């Protein structure tokens, strides 16, 4: 069964014609998004800078109550 599924996908990708270009675009896009944008420009700040939810809550409360 697993081999059948593998062959299905393998054959599908192998016989792709116009789809190859699209996969190229998808991979470049995913690389830009995850390896560049996510890594260097878009950290999850609260997750990165605080160890616990209590600290995160404290920080956000501070922000919300000091407009």
């Amino acid at each position, binding site marked *: 069964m697993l081999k059948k599924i593998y062959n299905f996908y393998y054959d599908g990708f192998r016989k792709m014609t116009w789809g190859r270009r699209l996969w190229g675009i998808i991979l470049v896009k995913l690389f830009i998004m995850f390896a560049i944008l996510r890594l260097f*420009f878009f950290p999850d*700040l*609260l*997750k990165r800078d*605080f160890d616990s939810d209590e600290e995160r809550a404290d920080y956000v409360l501070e922000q919300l*109550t*000091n407009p």
Partner: protein
Amino acid sequence: MRSGPITCWNNLLIPEQMLESIDMSLVDWSRGQFALTAMFHWIFVPLTLGLSFIVAFMHTIYVRTGDEEWKQTTKFWMKLFGINFAIGVATGIILEFEFGTNWSNYSWFVGDIFGAPLAIEGILAFFLESTFIAVMFFGWNKVSKRFHLLASWLTAFGASLSAVWILVANAWMQHPVGTVFNPETARNEMISFWDVIFSEVAVNKFLHTISSSFLLASIFVIGVSAWFLLRKREVLFARRSTVIASVFGVITAIATIVTGDSSARIVAREQPMKFAAMEALYEGQTHAPLVAIGAVRTDTSSSSYSREDFIFKIEIPNALSYMVFLTPSGFVPGISDLVFGNEEEGYISYEERIERGAVAIQTLKDLKKAKDRGDEQSYNTLREKFNDPVWLDQYYQHFGFGYYKGRELKELIPNVKLSFYSFHVMVILGGHFLIFTIVALWLSLKNRWGNHRWLLWVALLTLPMPWIASQAGWVVAELGRQPWVVYELMPTIAAVTRLKPVAVQITFWIFLLTFTLLFIAEIRIMLSQIKKGPGGK
């Protein structure tokens, strides 16, 4: 805490001493960045949603008839669906990046409300779409015809189903229900999943979005088919495609108008300021007329906030009151009624709401202080307020207004000009789409579609219009509710992460460049495949 509450993120976070005043350019750039990402993402989504169903219809006809011409037709539109899906896929994830970086206060505040629907969306999208899209594209002659067809249908339903969740989350931001605010964690907690997903706003938003997306795809198919007919190429394919798309188009155009009408009624009730902005209505009235068409200009001289005056307008008497209340005697509040209050009609002034909101914020601040100093008695007294329905109704309900204490009232009014034009462009185009799809269907059924070249040109020129209408709809929904991120609870000035504006500007331009390149790629690949036609490899 790892490195202090305001850590240096590539030196682009604002230092603590500068936190007192939020730079509006930061809010504007952050909003601009989010709008750019969301609107770019929305170029692809509606076509994916609608085209997947059109492909499934065609695929069904092929399986039922065994007609090879239908197989070619199905494969052609499936190819265009694939191109659109590939270019658009994952562009929405950038929005989630932005939540964590640019809108961290907001993403914490909304908590599970956003997390749960988006997690479900992620899982559904991954399993349904990626699994069945593969079967859809690779399955020709590899799996049984029926299973292959099932994959096409599941792809279509999977795409729509994944749209449900993001729309539910958005609907909650427009109309927060089914949740309570926990002042200890500063998060909203879901108390009723069903209230969140079946709120009137969520249901209507889903139906209006999905029907307008189906309509967009129908017009795309009719437009592309018209190009073939104009060139006298693939005539049978183009006529058949037009029949399917125009049937789907008429049904979904009617559905879009009906859901749009109920959406306006809901907006009028739940977000009266947005509704007033959509109609540039400043003074509320009974027997309010609906502006069918008009042009506005900004007049800065007359009041404490600039207002839009009509250069000209054509009105339908009583129609606005009737649209909202189903009776012409219904009072539709204008911007002035909402800002300055209207006791007779039960509208509290914004100044009063600001005062009450400030009390709610101060209570939250006092609660935190009591907790920090271990004053249990004060803490319990203050904590109890957040469970008291009367206090919640009198004060917490206006929480977001508290951020405008000492600021100008005009900051609480959305951009009226843009809201007005976006709304009217959307409505006028919606009317055009209904007439257009009816004509296309009528002539197709009479086998006369394609006989009039000017009509084919109309079809071709109409092709980009649903995108304009769809984006205008997004502008009405999102810009019209400004300044709120979570309606009347959290404004953009409180939701935004206090980064340096230059940090947001850098990513804005990176996105603009990336998105432009992707868009060019989409158009080029799409055009080259269309030129090849259904027979092309």
